């Protein structure tokens, strides 16, 4: 069943210099029980996509297109209804667990508060459920942890608590914005395993946002690569990473250090992405692309579809030949 269907989503933000396009014609869909990865560097629009889904765009933003979440159109929905959906059906986990946890309140208070207001549980029922949730995310000694404050936990444990909070109202969709970027690899491995388990066990749909393609590879089913507010390539994670077609995707994969290789320089993509609102009509990556042709900047790049799962926005020949 399709849980989320985004069609031609455009978002314009009000900046000092007028309106600037932050998201440009985004299409994506998500089945229930699927993990979709959104990859890109900062400013690529990956976080903006999540904020749009949550209805948390800054004031005076313009939004157009369609955003259907389990049958409900979210574009133009009234604020009160959106708040309901945000609390119960879509929830979010952020990069820094300390920004979503109150430092002075006990874990128990913070966990149960939501359940009491949104689900109408009694205090005891909520506490029971909180213990279940903490067990689920593998917090040792959940009973006692309920009375502890966030500072008594390590960074990884805090992120697990944030995930427990996000799960409190049994959401259908979980948005995770760089939830492991601030963590050590060993801790990250644990959190990735937790996300996978939540999907397998409860059929939770997850949109996972990160710039780390290694993380994407191990966790996600499908991948959407974004650049300067646009989609550049999307497809099944395995095909996309093994056979990337867009020069940008290739570029970031090449720039990654190879854990099995020997000492050598990294292949960096030179230059910088365009500023917000300064994307050209054609390919936004043209000025950093090794296959750049004069037409790349000036004409609208058509979508090339390889099969129902793999598609990309690039039409230069050197790529079509070698794959």
């Amino acid at each position, binding site marked *: 069943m399709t849980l989320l269907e985004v069609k031609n989503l455009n978002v314009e933000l009000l900046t000092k210099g007028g309106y600037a396009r932050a998201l440009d014609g985004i299409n994506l869909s998500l089945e229930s029980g699927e993990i979709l990865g959104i990859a890109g*560097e900062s400013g690529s629009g990956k976080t903006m996509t999540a904020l749009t889904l949550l209805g948390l765009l800054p004031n005076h933003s313009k939004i157009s297109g369609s955003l259907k979440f389990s049958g409900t159109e979210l574009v133009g929905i009234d604020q009160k209804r959106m708040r309901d959906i945000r609390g119960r059906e879509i929830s979010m986990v952020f990069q820094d667990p300390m920004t979503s946890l109150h430092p002075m309140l006990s874990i128990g208070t913070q966990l149960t508060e939501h359940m009491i207001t949104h689900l109408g549980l009694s205090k005891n029922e909520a506490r029971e459920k909180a213990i279940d949730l903490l067990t689920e995310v593998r917090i040792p000694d959940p009973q006692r942890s309920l009375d502890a404050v966030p500072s008594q936990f390590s960074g990884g444990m805090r992120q697990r608590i944030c995930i427990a909070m996000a799960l409190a109202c049994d959401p259908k969709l979980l948005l995770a914005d760089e939830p492991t970027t601030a963590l050590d690899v*060993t801790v990250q*491995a644990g959190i990735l395993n937790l996300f996978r388990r939540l999907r397998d066990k409860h059929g939770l749909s997850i949109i996972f946002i990160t710039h780390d393609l290694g993380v994407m590879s191990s966790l996600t089913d499908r991948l959407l690569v974004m650049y300067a507010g646009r989609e550049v390539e999307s497809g099944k994670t395995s095909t996309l990473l093994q056979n990337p077609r867009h020069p940008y995707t290739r570029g970031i994969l090449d720039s990654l250090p190879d854990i099995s*290789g020997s000492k050598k320089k990294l292949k960096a993509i030179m230059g910088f992405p365009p500023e917000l609102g300064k994307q050209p009509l054609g390919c936004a990556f043209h000025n950093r692309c090794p296959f750049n042709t004069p037409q790349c900047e000036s004409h609208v790049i058509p979508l090339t579809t390889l099969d129902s799962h793999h598609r990309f926005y690039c039409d230069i020949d050197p790529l079509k030949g070698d794959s």
Partner: protein
Amino acid sequence: MILEVKNLSVTYRRQDGAHITAVNSVDLSLDRGEVLGLVGESGCGKSTLGKAIMGIVPAASGTISFKDNFVEPLGRGSRPEPLRALQLIFQDPYSSLNPRRKIGDQLIDGLINQGENEKSARQYSAQLLERVGLSASALEKYTHQFSGGQRQRIAIARALSVKPEVIIADEPISALDASAQAQVSNLLLELTKEFNLGLIFISHDLSVVRQITDRTAVMYFGEIVEIGDTDVIWNSPVHPYTKALIEAVPKPDGKGSLPVELSGDVPDPRFPPTGCRFNPRCKFRIDKCTSEAPQLFSINKSQTVSCFLSSTSKND
């Protein structure tokens, strides 16, 4: 050998009054032109070790010799001139540059301190900026006009201004964007060759360390648990902690295999485990591990490990 650290320990008193040993009798050495990676989870003491080598935090015991001098902690006086060839790149390029001074004024500090006149110091700074990939016009600008990656380049240019012989880079890329990460690590690698520098690259990003370093030291709970040639360490790690670290790195191969989880947390520094510090999290723990602390031990020409398993396998 240009830098030699012997038996270095760093202790400090936490705000709650507890005495914490952040670095515990560490030995390290570095040659000119060599890149040494220092890896470990956060809180393992790698950053503190870097700062202690620089003299920013005082050592509780042990010595740090740089060329023919002992590194002394930064005091009230100016840093002795020979020690200025030992420089640090900070993790956060936002806080390591003064937001209220022009880039040019900050870059010439080191040369002015060595008695250079301002004009030639500025000329040299302009050259350095161009060398790290920025335009000389940056001299007249302020930090807020630059991105994180560009600021880190400026910080590198500043360190280069005093003609350093050893640079310690403390997580120099972890605050940067993916594409800037590769650019800045490449720049550091090029500079070590060009200026024949020794570089200590402190990072929690194992794959970068794997790719750009000659030797790797793995730290756990204030101690070096394994050190040796990068290729050897990564292809045939011996210490269970090193193995766990490598297994935890997700690989972008599209195969969909989840990284292996290392259970448990770094222990509370107030109550260090007895015996091997890693034993509570170790999959291969034997009785001896809880009672006796293993010593660093050369298992072959290019690999030194502190683990009983390595010595037993050698004795067999």
